[in-house]
């Protein structure tokens, strides 16, 4: 009977639900939202990429060695692991802003997989190029040293 009267009383009460799109629901100040990136502070150690569990961060590299940061909000799980791993305070940080929905036009899954593979490939290309240049330089140095040594020996004999 008590329950019945309580139920009847509920008819005159305000609804407990919030009208979501028009009214903001509860959100704490330190909500785990989008990951932000400050390029001027980054030291390009790529530690955030190494620790990221779903692989939502990747760095690509052009032939001059300049790195670019890529981030996918739909792959990200907002675990803050990248922020904890970052050795430079403020280079990568977490905002309280919730991620917007992904649209079909963005091609967020396949596009990201392609971008990820390309970024890794670009780094490998750069590394190979660097190695090649280093090898060339080493060979040139060696040749120069041999020539110098030969010249020195020639001087001695002469």
């Amino acid at each position, binding site marked *: 009977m008590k329950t019945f009267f309580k139920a009847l009383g509920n008819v005159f009460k305000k609804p407990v639900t919030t009208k979501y799109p028009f009214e903001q629901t*509860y*959100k*704490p100040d330190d*909500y785990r939202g989008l990951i932000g990136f400050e390029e001027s502070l980054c030291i390009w150690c790529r530690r955030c990429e190494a620790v990221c*569990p779903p692989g939502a961060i990747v760095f690509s590299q052009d032939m001059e060695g300049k790195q670019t940061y890529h981030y996918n909000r739909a792959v990200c799980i907002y*675990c*803050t692991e990248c922020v904890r791993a970052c050795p430079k305070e403020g280079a990568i940080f977490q905002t309280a802003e919730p991620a917007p929905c992904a649209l079909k036009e963005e091609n967020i899954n396949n596009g990201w997989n392609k971008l990820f593979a390309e970024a890794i490939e670009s780094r490998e290309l750069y590394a190979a190029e660097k190695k090649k240049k280093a090898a060339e330089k080493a060979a040139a140095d060696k040749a120069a040293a041999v020539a110098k040594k030969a010249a020195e020996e020639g001087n001695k004999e002469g």
Partner: protein
Amino acid sequence: MAKQYEIPIGAQHISLLEPLHFKFTTENEKIVNTEANVFYVHRGIEQACVTKFKFRQVSFVVGRVCGLCSISHSTAYSQVAEKLLKIDIPIRAKYLRMLVIELDRIHSHLLCLSHVAENSGFEALFMKTMQYREFSMELLEAVCGNRIQYDFAIVGGVSRDLKPEVGQTILKRLKTFMPQLEEIVDIFKTNWTLSLKNKGAGIINKEMVYRLNAVGPFARAAGVPIDVRNETEDLLPWKEVGFEVVTETSGDVYARNLVRLKELYVSIRIIENIINGLPESALITETKAFPEGEATVRLEAPRGELFYYAKGNKTQVLERLKIKAPTFSNVAAMRAAFEGNEYASAPAIIASYDPCLSCTAR
């Protein structure tokens, strides 16, 4: 002998939260035999953990095993990884882990109770319980930054600190929740309509619990004090924060409801004690070691004992990870508890098991 009919329930059914299939053999509306199939949501998480992910990333992967006991999984994995690394975590991290586990237990138990009410045909109580449950979701969001996937326990400690003002909010919200909890307890105890569906339904006795290896509130409702928090003290200091084991004697749906409701009081007491006596220390133990050897861990999830086994071989990737979820232990007892009941009370009995199939099938 009367004619026997076979009635299936699931894998998709309106009274089930997750894909679960029961095939009942009934005789004059009474269930005489049950077959269960629980492996509909296999996702290959164990294999992913030992191939694709590094051992520090696995604590986020296993958090996705189950939405309701996410923190239990990530805590249990973190503990087993810490055993492999042979490190001890700071005392504050232990207390914060217990705090989030207990908050999670409140929201999980309230969800289960609301579904028992719904499946017993009491829709208004379902709405009420769900409404009162919202506060625990908001508190978890304030503590961890997210409503469902907490990512709170990481290898070596916890990822976030508890701000003092958030602690005060928790105490305040728990105070406002107390009269609401009293109201729900009153309805679950005294409502006559609910008792028709709940009292004497799905009975499991003490002897069956031991024989069929049931765990969690399912076993405690039959009077067996099986609780990991009562048995081990080496990883988390449960006794220090005022834990007491809760048991009932009758072993039916009503007793399981009461066990869950009484555990809410225990959880609230534990949370209050933790916030009032939170020790100061670091949050995380840093180490550069790699996991080596074998280790096992048991932890009391909202549904019962959660078991983790891991094996490391001094590399970034684990060699083996085994997860045994509480529902998996309960399947045999679940089948036995149906026998002799009316077919009509089967949905309420299923809800009272609080089955979590995502955990079971991984």
